């Protein structure tokens, strides 16, 4: 490496070979390629600790910036600065940019996590006192005023109303939605394309407009009273395109080979759909439906227009006004009394618990069966369940549909797992 031919070439584009420092200590071998070394970890943690001290100095001693928010902002800004300085000690501008970008991305993700946790914790804490009374879960609000103590009244009527309304909505939309999805993906043709276009367009329908539609048609034009049935129809109009589209997404990623094998064995199209396509897609369909239900149960605006607000148990959906959880929360929080607001937060906790249960059920159903036991080989089986159905790419929550329309993704989402 010593014999470097020196030429008098122009300076532009000249290559400098690195010079070696013979006295330097031998490099420490890295334990692994992907992980940071001890030095790097020390620099990272040290930078943030230094930034914490700096932030304290700035906000508490130097500048008149009071309160926790300013302290956190100062910590973040100082952290970026100190990180940049420590990075520039060991590398150039490229390294500084890398470290700063990593900090920004990590802190941004932490903010989002903090927001989610703060929302959940805040609602539970504010609604804690009513939740401590058992009658909150079994009573209704008839005869209970906004100022009454927490050992009277409850939200059982709202829970019951929500379940009845969503139950009716699901009973209507589930067969229609899944049937339409089967039609769009299994029968096909020009008409199916028209249906798919219209259904996809109607997923853009704002929920309040769905409520206004039912209000105009069902209540004003046809003259029915506000009732649980009207609310169920409004939720149904909102949910139908969502469920149809999500189911279509799931059915489209069922491998075509399975269908062809079934048809080649002599099964009719009906039998193919019933015994091959639907069982293969069952976990995905269940996920799609449960997430649609979670969306329907939490949506306030269609219910606000159509159901009316009853403080007592109503079991007949065609018989006048009927309450539901989101509507109960909205109307009690509007009254402004501290006790009412606490009740609204408690009802919010119940609503979140219901949604959480639905959500966990959906995740358990959709979970790949073997993914936990054997680490999947990198290119072939990332996130597929035992039917070869890739549920990650067919996640119905992502309303964009499968990432690759033929269901045979060249790069499954987990294939980059081993990248450093």
């Amino acid at each position, binding site marked *: 490496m010593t014999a470097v031919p020196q030429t008098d070439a122009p300076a532009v584009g000249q290559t400098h070979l690195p010079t070696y420092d013979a006295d330097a200590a031998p490099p420490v071998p890295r334990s692994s390629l992907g992980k940071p070394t001890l030095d790097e970890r020390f620099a990272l943690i040290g930078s943030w600790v230094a930034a914490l001290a700096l932030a304290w100095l700035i906000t508490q001693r130097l500048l008149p910036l009071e309160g926790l928010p300013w302290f956190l902002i100062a910590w973040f800004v100082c952290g970026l600065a100190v990180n940049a300085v420590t990075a520039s000690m060991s590398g150039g501008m*490229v390294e500084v*940019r*890398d470290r700063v970008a990593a900090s920004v*991305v*990590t802190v*941004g*993700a932490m*903010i*989002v*996590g903090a927001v*989610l946790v*703060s*929302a959940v914790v*805040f*609602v539970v804490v*504010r609604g804690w006192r009513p939740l401590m009374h058992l009658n909150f879960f079994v009573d209704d609000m008839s005869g209970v005023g906004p100022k009454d103590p927490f050992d009277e009244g409850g939200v059982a009527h709202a829970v019951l109303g929500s379940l009845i309304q969503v139950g009716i909505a699901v009973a209507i939309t589930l067969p*229609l939605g899944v049937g339409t999805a*089967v*039609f769009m993906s*299994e*029968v096909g043709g020009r*008409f199916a394309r028209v249906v798919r276009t219209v259904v996809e*367009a*109607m997923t*853009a*329908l*704002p929920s*309040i*407009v769905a409520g*206004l*539609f039912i209000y*105009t*048609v069902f209540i004003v034009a046809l003259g029915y009273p506000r009732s649980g049935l009207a609310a169920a129809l409004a939720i149904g*109009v909102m949910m*139908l395109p969502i469920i149809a589209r999500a189911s279509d997404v799931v059915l489209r990623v069922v491998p075509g080979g399975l269908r062809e094998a079934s048809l080649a064995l002599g099964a*009719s199209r*009906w039998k193919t759909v019933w015994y091959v396509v639907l069982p293969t897609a069952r976990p995905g369909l269940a996920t799609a439906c449960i*997430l649609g239900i979670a969306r329907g149960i*939490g949506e306030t*605006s269609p219910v606000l*227009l159509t159901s009316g607000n009853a403080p007592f148990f109503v079991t007949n959906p065609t018989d006048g006004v009927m309450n539901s959880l989101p509507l109960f929360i909205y109307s009690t929080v509007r009254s402004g009394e501290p006790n009412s607001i606490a009740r609204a*937060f408690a009802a919010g906790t119940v*609503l*979140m618990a219901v949604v*959480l249960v639905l959500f966990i059920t959906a*995740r358990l159903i959709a979970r790949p069966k073997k993914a936990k036991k054997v680490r999947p080989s990198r290119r072939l089986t990332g996130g597929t369940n035992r039917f070869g159905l890739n549920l990650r*790419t067919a*996640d119905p*929550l*992502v309303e*964009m549909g499968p*990432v*690759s329309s033929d269901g045979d993704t060249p*790069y499954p*989402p*987990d*294939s*980059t*797992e081993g*990248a450093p």
Partner: protein
Amino acid sequence: MATTLPVPDTSTDVSPRRISRKSTGADAVFVQSIRVVGATVLVITGGVGIFLGWQAWPTLQHYGISFFTETTWQPEADILGIRAVLTGTICVALVAMSIAFPLALVTALYISEYAPSFLRSTLVSMVDLMAAVPSIIWGLWGYFLIMPHASELAVWLDRNFGWVPFFDVENADPNAPVVDISRYSFSMFCAGIAVAMMVLPMSCAVMRQVFSQTPPGEKEAALALGATKWGMIRAVVLPFGRGGIIGGTMLGLGRALGETIAVLLILSPSFEAKWRVLEIGGNTVSALIAGRFGDASKSQLSALLAAGFVLFIITLIVNTVAAVIVNRSRSGAGTDA
């Protein structure tokens, strides 16, 4: 062992069997009945859209272009227009997107590139869970937890950046010894924060999905050439995911435009076409519908339906453009596998 060849039977005229894709028997019943289901759904969903347009038509005809230029909503005086609510809708959506977009982008990048692999699926579930949190919960969160802090931030913004028309607040002095904080609360800014948390998980999920589709070969090539992680993200992941970033953001925008309950809870209604997002008051199309449907006569209902129709059309355009952009990026065009 001799092999006997089959002797072709020439006595009858053999012609190839006719192959028909036409269903017979139970299959025909299945195909026809499932087609009826599809047609029903087409009628229901398409009917909503056509009904909205049909109901909106008399209003649009009656008020003409003034329906889009008038700010007030006074049906009893026969003056109404959606300029104020349309401005408010766009303002709230813009505030929401300017908060949600950077957070969604960095969260998606964190999950797909920075997070340790054992955490990744948990984080994905958390983002999905965030999408499942009902909007009324985000409304409560925004109203009770965020708004006090947000109005203080609004005072600070007005004090230091009041010369920007966006951040100006009329009839309030941010430098007064006791600032009138009520002028800074119940604003489109506060409502936008709550809406941002609703649309963030949706944008984030789309972005993450597109990022995770980045060809690993190109990422590894960038790293092998000596790129840092950020260099690899800038050179490979972001260009590859550009369609997903734009499309996910626009999908979120479509959702933000139609959001009702958080806006209704936080924003104090006023009919003024203004871009001063920090100031108290404002209105959106969906909040207008939710607030005015109860005491509306037949013609007013038609006007509300017209407003809803306009909102639906805007959302539809945004969503369609988003779908086209994401679809185009989905093919992975421009990269060799």
